[in-house]
């Protein structure tokens, strides 16, 4: 046991393999081609050498002797006024994916959207984004998108006119059979109007909203408790105590981009008066949100109802019953005490889809006074509106032949419904099936007519994610393919006289905003702010669709109408009538006490499956397991020991398990359903629970990313309980199969340790109580460490033999607040998107060749059964005394007068000395031509994964940022602090002849991509030489928590970290025994 914090089991046990790994940055010879074989291993090394030599000479001669090509420079015929070639324009629009809606800005360079930024005007997200929002721009250029409408078979392209005619004939011949429009949640007011207009044309028709992972349980519970089938607005920023029962509210639950900034508000520390919210998580499988928690308690998945009831009873001081686990029971009691002590300033959220559990949670929230304080019923959240039973009814109707036509947008039930076969059979019995989905997904494959919708970046539209807060959508590129906005199709078929959706939308908003100026402003801002438009926009709720007008759009469409008038203070009248029945129902289903349970969860990148075809998201490491591509079975260390005989306290077992990417495959059986997947051991998993992520195992039609490590589909394991879908499988059996399957983990790729010794203090963490008692503890620790080299004050000049260099103008610096980092990965994908970072594919990740410039390291500390988790974003530290710079034989990496550690790609000859010498392990080497930068296009098709080769497609390459060099084979690269943005920001200031603004009065000339993307403002970046800049203020105001990672090496990093503070009373220290007493189950 050495380190307080550990990343891998090998590190924890200091195994032989781990120590070996710490010796070398690179564990292989430089291959001549990416075939894993060094030259000397070849059969005839000399001949091979001559072959390579001859080939490269010939190739160079051919490449060089060609004449310079004649390049054309073709200007506009008529230049639009607002477009400056080579300069980006930003258009406000909205990311819409199923029910999710996030206000964004699309960066458009020369007609192509290339990057998504958060819209800082949004009162919901405040400019935050998520990994999926960031990655959505790549979906626009997905080669697997459907490119034209067709009937029955994909090969037969037809025109929109022809398909309209055929559909009109079919719809006219339905003989009165009802038409059903099946969509994922729609929160666009105008789309709801369009739908109402369409449905009015076909009497008996209906609109069903279907969410892959639904919140039906909550909607139904709220209807029972508050009389409103809606989800209220949560205000985590008002909460001092946040209790989550299995709700991954920062990662995948409801609206993480909205909750993250609220949550972060309570997690930021003011050093003068340290206080923070307390977050307690009850769960079965370690989620990303659970990793942020101050305290975590483990329970069986099926036990969640019992936990909720026990918590309610404890809050009401009627005794905690029905919980057998002592630690869990103590945790519930402690939580109840805290909740009662913070009445009106605490909130309980629950991820269960069981209405009974949610009714109990409503009762708890009533008891702790959350209603009206941390839960606001004045506005509702409209992200999820689907009711599972509506869809179950539809499946029944379809199979009974009662449905005439089925129109599908967004929803993909053939893949996501638990009984996929009955959906597929039902669809086959429907006379007319029409899909608007933009890819040939599992459901679309069964549809007769396919009229692909635009990507959201090509569309007009609006969204009402929170009632009364609107976000508008405008096209940022001319449609790439022969697609059509689906609202246009509906309007055409509803017989509206020559109205397109744009006109409809415009008319609607002109009416609401009262004129052209208002509309232009709204489109420019991308949002209609409730505060500014309170007089014109009436609040509405999610249930407005029934009242939407059926008039023609040229006659004024009525503004959204309020139903269920809000009462003052955001409270709603509570009706506890259903509580007794709910509690009874929960206790009737007494939780199991033996056997293994399966919990199906969503991953932050893949979601319910939306991200599966996006290579950026597939290669985004899971925040907790740090695995890329594929899904897998998560098991606890205890289960590994009892079931598989892997004792993680034994070094030999640890190495056997951890060193090789090949993992044992287990077979999971529940009833007649089985799945075979490899397993990963994750500390913090309940001993009798296994977890598997949904969203994998997609059809190959979705693109190359799903064929490379696409995982397996586990939606069949979900079950329909009669009212809702349950993601808990109470009884499963696990068997060994004897097979292995490789998993691409990045967790062990980077280690700070060296053969000379362990570098422990990469992560600094302290409990709030301790920090309050000894505010200068971290500072003193650092002072002591640096004492031999002049102490903190003189360390910079005295700790080195190298001369001191002035930074006369700008000096860049970054501060990373580990306290508010939630590990969501938005910054990682933003970095990929901004800097043209290559996706390398599963096989290459297995070989440690991942290219991410910014990674979020996950550290465990404490007890292996239920450890604390800390996320640490790690990027190039831009050391002022950089070890990498000294060892470069060609001076390809050197230091700028602004404090940047520069990398000149064209100078690099690929010795990799720099990466070897980098103590932070943030340098990345291009082992192959991942982005098609070489002069011979497509030269690695046989070598790299198909998903990687996508970057050789002209369509996909449209996403590349033209201001950043596309690196080629054999070149080192790393974080540049987004130097292209820095240069642009400086130039802006210079053109306006004024000093640079980096955060003074919240005015910014530039932000790095990670900083812009972060929903919780973890990153603060700017000019350290400017005393008023945000970064200077941040460092000035947080002296007690700031530190540099392994700073005693005198690397002088320009990135400082703020110590993670955990809101607990106990000391966080070395060894396991410390946590025994504090309720970790």
């Amino acid at each position: 046991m050495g380190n307080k914090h550990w990343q891998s089991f090998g590190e924890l046990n200091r195994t032989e393999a781990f120590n070996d790994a710490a010796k070398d940055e690179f564990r292989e010879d430089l291959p001549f081609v990416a075939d894993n074989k060094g030259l000397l291993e070849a059969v005839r090394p000399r001949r091979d050498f001559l072959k390579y030599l001859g080939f490269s000479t010939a190739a160079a001669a051919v490449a060089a002797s060609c004449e310079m090509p004649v390049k054309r420079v073709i200007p506009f015929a008529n230049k639009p006024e607002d477009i400056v070639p080579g300069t980006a324009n930003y258009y406000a629009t909205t990311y819409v994916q199923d029910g999710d809606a996030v206000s964004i800005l699309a960066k458009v360079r020369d007609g192509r959207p290339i990057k998504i930024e958060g819209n800082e005007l949004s009162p919901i997200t405040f400019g935050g984004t998520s990994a999926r929002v960031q990655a959505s721009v790549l979906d626009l250029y997905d080669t697997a998108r459907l490119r034209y409408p067709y009937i029955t078979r994909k090969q037969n392209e037809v025109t929109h006119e022809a398909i309209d005619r055929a559909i009109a004939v079919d719809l006219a011949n339905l003989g009165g059979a009802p038409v059903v429009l099946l969509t994922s949640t729609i929160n666009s007011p105008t789309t709801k109007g369009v739908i109402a207009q369409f449905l009015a044309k076909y009497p008996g028709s209906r609109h069903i909203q279907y969410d892959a992972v639904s919140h039906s349980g909550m909607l139904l519970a709220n209807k029972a408790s508050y009389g409103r089938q809606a989800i209220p607005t949560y205000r985590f920023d008002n909460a001092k105590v946040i209790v989550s029962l299995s709700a991954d509210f920062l990662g995948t639950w409801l609206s993480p981009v909205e909750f993250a900034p609220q949550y972060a508000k309570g997690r930021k520390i003011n050093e003068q008066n340290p206080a923070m919210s307390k977050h307690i998580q009850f769960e079965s499988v370690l989620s990303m949100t659970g990793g942020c928690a101050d305290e975590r308690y483990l329970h069986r998945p099926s036990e969640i109802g019992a936990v909720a009831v026990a918590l309610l009873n404890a809050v009401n001081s009627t005794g905690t019953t029905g919980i057998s686990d002592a630690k869990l029971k103590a945790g519930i009691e402690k939580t109840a005490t805290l909740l009662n002590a913070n009445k009106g300033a605490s909130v309980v959220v629950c991820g269960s889809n069981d209405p009974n559990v949610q009714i109990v949670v409503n009762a708890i929230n009533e008891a702790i006074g959350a209603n009206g304080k941390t839960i606001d019923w004045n506005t509702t959240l409209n992200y999820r509106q689907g009711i599972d039973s509506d869809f179950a009814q539809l499946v029944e109707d379809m199979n009974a032949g009662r449905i005439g036509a089925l129109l599908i947008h967004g929803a993909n039930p053939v893949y996501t419904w638990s009984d996929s076969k009955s959906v597929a059979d039902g669809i086959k019995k429907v006379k007319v099936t029409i899909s608007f989905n933009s890819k040939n997904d599992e459901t679309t494959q069964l549809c007769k007519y396919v009229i692909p919708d635009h990507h959201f970046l090509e569309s007009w539209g609006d969204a009402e994610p929170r009632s009364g807060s609107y976000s508008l959508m405008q096209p940022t590129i001319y449609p790439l393919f022969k697609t059509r906005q689906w609202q246009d199709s509906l309007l055409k078929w509803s017989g509206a006289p020559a109205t397109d959706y744009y006109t409809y939308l415009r008319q609607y908003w002109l009416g609401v905003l009262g004129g052209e100026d208002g509309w232009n402003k709204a489109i420019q801002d991308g949002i209609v702010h409730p505060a500014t438009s309170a007089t014109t926009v009436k609040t509405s709720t999610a249930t407005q669709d029934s009242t939407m007008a059926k008039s023609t759009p040229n006659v004024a469409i009525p503004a959204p109408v309020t139903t269920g008038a809000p009462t003052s203070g955001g409270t709603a009248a509570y009706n506890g009538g259903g509580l007794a029945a709910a509690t009874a129902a929960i206790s009737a289903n007494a939780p199991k006490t033996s056997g293994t349970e399966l919990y199906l969860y969503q991953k932050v990148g893949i979601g319910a499956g939306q991200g599966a075809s996006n290579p950026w998201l597939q290669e985004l490491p899971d925040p907790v397991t740090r695995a890329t591509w594929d899904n897998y079975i998560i098991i606890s260390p205890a289960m590994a020991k009892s079931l598989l005989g892997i004792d993680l306290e034994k070094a030999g077992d640890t190495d056997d398990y951890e060193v090789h990417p090949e993992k044992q495959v287990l077979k999971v059986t529940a009833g007649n359903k089985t799945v075979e997947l490899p397993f990963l051991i994750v500390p913090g998993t309940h001993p009798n629970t296994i977890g598997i992520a949904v969203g994998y195992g997609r059809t190959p039609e979705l693109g190359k990313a799903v064929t490379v490590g696409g995982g397996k589909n586990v939606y069949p394991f979900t079950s329909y309980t009669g009212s809702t879908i349950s993601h808990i499988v109470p009884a499963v059996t696990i068997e060994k199969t004897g097979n292995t399957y490789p998993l691409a983990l990045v967790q062990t790729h980077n280690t700070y340790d060296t053969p000379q010794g362990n570098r422990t203090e990469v992560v600094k963490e302290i409990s709030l109580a301790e920090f309050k008692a000894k505010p200068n503890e971290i500072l003193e620790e650092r002072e002591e460490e640096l004492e031999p080299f002049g102490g903190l004050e003189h360390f910079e000049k005295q700790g080195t033999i190298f001369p001191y260099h002035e930074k006369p103008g700008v000096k860049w610096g970054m501060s990373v607040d580990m306290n508010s980092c939630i590990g969501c990965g938005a910054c990682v994908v933003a970095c990929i998107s901004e800097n043209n970072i290559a996706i390398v594919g599963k096989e290459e990740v297995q070989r440690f060749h991942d290219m991410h410039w910014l990674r979020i390291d996950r550290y465990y500390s404490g007890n292996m059964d239920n450890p604390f988790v800390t996320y640490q974003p790690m990027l190039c530290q831009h050391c002022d005394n950089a070890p990498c710079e000294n060892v470069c034989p060609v001076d390809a990496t050197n230091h700028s007068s602004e404090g940047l550690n520069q990398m000149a790609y064209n100078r690099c000859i690929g010795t990799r000395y720099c990466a070897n010498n980098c103590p932070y392990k943030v340098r990345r080497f291009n082992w192959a031509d991942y982005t098609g930068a070489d002069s011979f296009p497509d030269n690695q098709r046989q070598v790299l994964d198909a998903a990687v080769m996508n970057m050789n497609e002209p369509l996909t390459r449209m996403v590349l940022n033209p201001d950043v060099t596309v690196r080629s084979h054999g070149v080192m690269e790393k974080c540049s602090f987004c130097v292209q943005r820095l240069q642009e920001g400086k130039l802006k200031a210079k053109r306006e002849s004024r000093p640079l603004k980096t955060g003074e009065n919240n005015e910014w000339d530039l932000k790095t991509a990670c900083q812009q993307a972060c929903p919780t403002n973890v990153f603060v970046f700017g000019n350290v030489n400017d005393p008023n800049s945000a970064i200077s203020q941040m460092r000035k105001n947080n002296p007690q928590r700031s530190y540099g990672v392994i700073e005693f090496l005198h690397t002088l990093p320009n990135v400082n970290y703020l110590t993670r503070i955990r809101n607990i009373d106990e000391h966080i220290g070395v060894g396991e025994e410390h946590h025994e007493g504090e309720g970790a189950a």
Partner: protein
Amino acid sequence: MNHHSRLGKHIGSVVILFFLFIVGFKANAQNGQSLFAANCASCHQVNKRLVGPALAGVEERGPWTDRKALHAWIHNPAGFMKTDPYTQGLFKEYGGVMMTAFPGLSEKDIDAILDYIKSVPAATAPVPGAATATNPEASGDNTLLFGILTLILAIVSFVLLQVNSNLKRLADDKEGVGGTEPLPFWRNKAYIAFVAVILFLISGYFTVSGAIGLGRSQKYEPVQPIFYSHKVHAGTNQISCLYCHGNTEVGKQANIPSVNICMNCHMGINEYKGPDKLVDGDGKEHDGTAEIQKLYQYAGFEYGKLWDASKAQPIPWVRIHNLPDHVYFNHSQHVKVGKVQCQSCHGEIQNMNEVYQFADLSMGWCINCHRNTQVQFKDNGFYSIYEQYHEKIKNGTLDTTNITVEKIGGTECQKCHY
């Protein structure tokens, strides 16, 4: 070193030349003629109707006898027209095209323009181009002389060596030593080695310099789809560079003008009668009027009819100035911020009938300029953050002229490569 100093001299002479050019230009910029060229000439001529009316005698027509009315009109034509029947008539006569407002022109500027209009005689005589100085080639090239000398010395030494070996052989013969058959020099290994080394060095030199030159294309002068003469436009007619290359001060690219920019003037100018001969690099003469007809074909325009801009097709110009993909260059940084003249990099563009690549655009060329060029240190507010330097300037320990681009980090890798 020799190479460097010559390059320095060369750049020096170029800089002096442009300085002369700038001075001439600035003097002109004060008067109405250049204001007219910059602001009015796209729609008006003095003696000919274009998009707007001919301006000769403007002050004798309608309300314009009062200069105040003219000021008001030019500052805000739409506002003026609301109450003025004369301009309402003009609006109709000119096909409902509104005059562009020039709120930025001061009354003094407008007066200067009007004075210029008055000063133009009924038939305009072209103003000869400003700077016509030629660029003196670096004189006293001694390469040939050195070459001949080297050759002569080489022959002499060869002869001497031969003589020496003959004498040695004679001496040996005389003393009766040796008796080996004499080797002819072409079989003498020393000679062969010597020649091989010389050949290797020469071929090496050419290979290396050729390799360095790969991808560079100085003096590149391609044939363009339209024989467009910068000499006629920027030289003789004194049209500001920024009129056509309008993004130079705001964007990364200077922007090749779109067809509608050409047509601003060429809707009226359909023939070329200027004094300059349109001669291309091969000495062939072109007919300007025919070239304007080519433009009309791209624009879809028939002279005398209203132009429908939507019919225009872009002109596929051949790109001359190419930077490698890994180089970032921004025009606004150099022109707007650095106040660098266009000619510093593009040569005497105002004297080029057919544009060629003036500089080799090599990294050495960029870096040398960054080493020698002063930053607008006091004039640009951005540099106020360099407090140390300002302090030193106050103390007199640092001279503003010493603050070159290099001094503020302008030769660091990631200023251009990222």
